[in-house]
């Protein structure tokens, strides 16, 4: 608006409006064929998407001769870089889920739906699928034309190749997913000769079809009408959240530039070329403000900047900015916002819990079950005996010989633990022991008893675990 009047370059403007009528706001009735434009955010999008290569390549990572990360469901063992996590340690999973849920919340509060725009598998896979579509079928107008054209040999050939590629990517997705659980080596060995189990084939088939349907056919409809995150994230934004925003003050009123016309100060900077709608993968018009369909991918920023450059105006008519900033209100620094602190606090707690859990994973664990019927038995020498079932869990990779002992505040006799208990790797081994206490030593009906389990690893490391239980006696 503040620009000095200048002459817009004629040819570029003609080109702009030639296709403007194509770009309509998505109402679900038509397939969105978004235009692809190079730019800064496009590059960042590819970079962010490339993180997903870990999903495909990760299963081939090795660690000490084994697959580095393997979720071995049949054996209920989860290997993470040399650490073995058993189902007993799964409280950490809830902390991990909490961590990621809050990470999503904190990211949303600060920079909006950045996850949706750059990392979400739906976005990334759809992006790759439409990239393939463009390579095979051409630009959006060509694609529309092809969709309307009658079936002929050429159309069948193109569509066949496209769908084959889509299915291939779907298959690779499923195959890579299963490799995290089945092991990449065994999967390559078993899968193609029919030796893998039904669950493997079913999972791969499900993922293949799921990927094909969701990224090939449903695309942005998932973001609009299937994904709960879209709705949840929408309410986590506030006026200081930085999202792609159309600068209304600067852009309105919109006015089409005409060839040879001297620019008037009466109209805003928006030239109403609809390029921002053209490139939008969900087909929304960002100029209507932040809305549920906007996945904040930043592609409209690239489009608008390139147009501004063509017509000789400043870039940034659509830019990453908070609503406060656009409205000219003072921008609150990040660390003054309460929700940033609350979210960060929860993040730190969850992370601390996971680190504590992983660092304190003991190789053995003892559980003590006190016999209930009878709670105690009186022996012929007058002493009281309690029966306990110890469950010793060996989480290490080697078979261990575990010595069990018990102590209490009064002298006790432990029976049944004279020989060390042999515990196979990864298994829970039960052991029945008896504790005898002289009746004269018993002061109340119950007495705490602590059981100790000690063992030695093959490398000489000492490991011990303990568990408190109770000793029951007759009432006086």
């Amino acid at each position, binding site marked *: 608006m503040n620009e000095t009047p200048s002459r817009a370059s004629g040819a570029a403007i003609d080109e702009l409006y030639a296709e403007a009528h194509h770009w309509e706001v998505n109402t679900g009735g038509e397939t969105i064929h978004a235009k692809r434009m190079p730019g800064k955010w496009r590059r960042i999008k590819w970079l962010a998407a490339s993180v997903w290569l870990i999903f495909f390549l990760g299963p081939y990572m090795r660690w000490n001769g084994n697959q580095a990360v393997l979720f071995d469901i049949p054996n209920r063992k989860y290997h993470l870089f040399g650490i073995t996590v058993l189902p007993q340690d799964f409280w950490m999973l809830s902390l991990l889920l909490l961590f990621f849920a809050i990470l999503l919340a904190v990211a949303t509060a600060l920079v909006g739906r950045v996850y949706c725009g750059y990392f979400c598998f739906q976005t990334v896979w759809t992006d790759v699928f439409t990239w393939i579509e463009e390579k095979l079928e051409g630009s959006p107008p060509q694609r529309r034309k092809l969709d309307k054209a009658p079936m002929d040999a050429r159309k069948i050939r193109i569509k066949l190749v496209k769908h084959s590629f889509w299915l291939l990517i779907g298959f690779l997705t499923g195959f890579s997913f299963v490799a995290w659980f089945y092991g990449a080596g065994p999967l390559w060995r078993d899968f193609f000769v029919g030796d893998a189990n039904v669950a493997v084939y079913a999972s791969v088939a499900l993922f293949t079809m799921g990927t094909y349907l969701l990224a090939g056919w449903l695309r942005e409809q998932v973001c609009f009408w299937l994904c709960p995150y879209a709705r949840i994230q929408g309410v986590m934004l506030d006026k200081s959240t930085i999202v792609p925003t159309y600068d209304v003050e600067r852009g309105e009123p919109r006015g089409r530039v005409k060839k040879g016309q001297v620019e008037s100060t009466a109209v805003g900077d928006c030239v109403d070329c609809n390029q921002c709608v053209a490139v939008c993968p969900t087909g929304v018009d960002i100029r209507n403000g932040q809305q549920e369909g906007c996945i904040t991918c930043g592609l409209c920023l690239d489009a608008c900047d390139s147009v501004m450059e063509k017509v000789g105006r400043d870039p940034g008519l659509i830019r990453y900015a908070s609503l406060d900033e656009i409205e000219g209100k003072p921008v609150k620094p990040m660390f003054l916002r309460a929700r940033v602190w609350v979210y960060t606090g929860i993040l730190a707690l969850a992370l601390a819990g996971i680190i504590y859990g992983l660092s304190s994973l003991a190789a053995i664990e003892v559980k003590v079950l006190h*016999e209930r*019927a*009878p709670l105690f*038995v*009186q*022996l*012929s020498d*007058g002493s009281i*005996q309690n029966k306990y079932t110890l469950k010793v869990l060996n989480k290490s990779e080697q078979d261990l010989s575990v010595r069990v002992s018990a102590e209490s505040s009064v002298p006790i006799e432990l029976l049944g633990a004279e020989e060390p208990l042999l515990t196979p790797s990864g298994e829970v081994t039960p052991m*029945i022991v008896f504790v005898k206490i002289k009746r004269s030593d018993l002061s109340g009906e119950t007495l705490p008893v602590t059981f100790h389990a000690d063992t030695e690893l093959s490398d000489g490391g000492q490991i011990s675990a303990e568990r408190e239980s109770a000793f029951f006696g007759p009432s006086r």
Partner: protein
Amino acid sequence: MADHNPFPGENNTGHFWDDNIRELNNPPPKWWMIALWASLAWFVLYGILYPTFPVFPWQSQQDGGFTKGLLGWTSIKEYEQGVEQVEAVRAQYEEQIANMTPEQILEDPGLTQYTLASAKVLFGDYCAACHGSGGQGNPGYPVLADDDWLFGGSLAKITETVTIGRKGAMTAHETILSAAEVDQLAQFVVDLADGGEGSEADWKLFNEKGCTACHGQTGNGVLAELPDGTIITVGAANLTDSIWRFRPGGYESAKHTILYGVNQPGIEQTRDAVMPAFGDSAGSLEGKLEPDQIKKLAVYVHSLGGGQ
């Protein structure tokens, strides 16, 4: 109904009422119809493959008054296959147990685990009704989790007890002893149970009245101990410990037992104390348990807390 369609190109069926009320042809979405036909196809296919239709009413259900289906699946068959799978896992243990003595089983931790788990079910079925789910006993039925045994707590003795059963016996002394003597003896056994020594007069009476014939010279229920450690007993209670055969124990209880005895025919108030025989040779009970089952139970009872 109008012959002329005033709303052309509207996708109506050509049925009109009152000039402008008409029936439109709005078919359900394609995916919905596909799902409908797919579920119909599923139903037909299922009907062909699995038992479905009760179409032969003249036949009873047992004879198969229904379509069998091409796969020949029945829920009973599936159940039997499941049982077979479990049996296959058990078989490897059962084969070993069949050729082992209870002592050998106890030396193998893996087999002991299996035996205890397996015998727990047997114990629940055959023993727990009287002896309690954990061997804690019931009034009139001995505790199996303690180390006080009437007929011996070795694996061999426990096996024998389960196989042939036990029936204790004690004479009723109502007509044999005077009231004062009964009273003195009852006081005496309460004293012994509480850790007392008993007076000379008590021991004299105990001896004279023939109590030692069953309860032993020291009153501990042991008649003799052979050089190899075998204990000879007739199943009389150990009077020197604080465990009472007939609960709740104490003076009144002891007096009752002395007066009316145990398992005495014709005496109404006599104590009942019969352990049925569970073995093959037990004619009257038609051999409820196989020898291998008794073997497992012996290991189980021995491990309850007081095996000798």
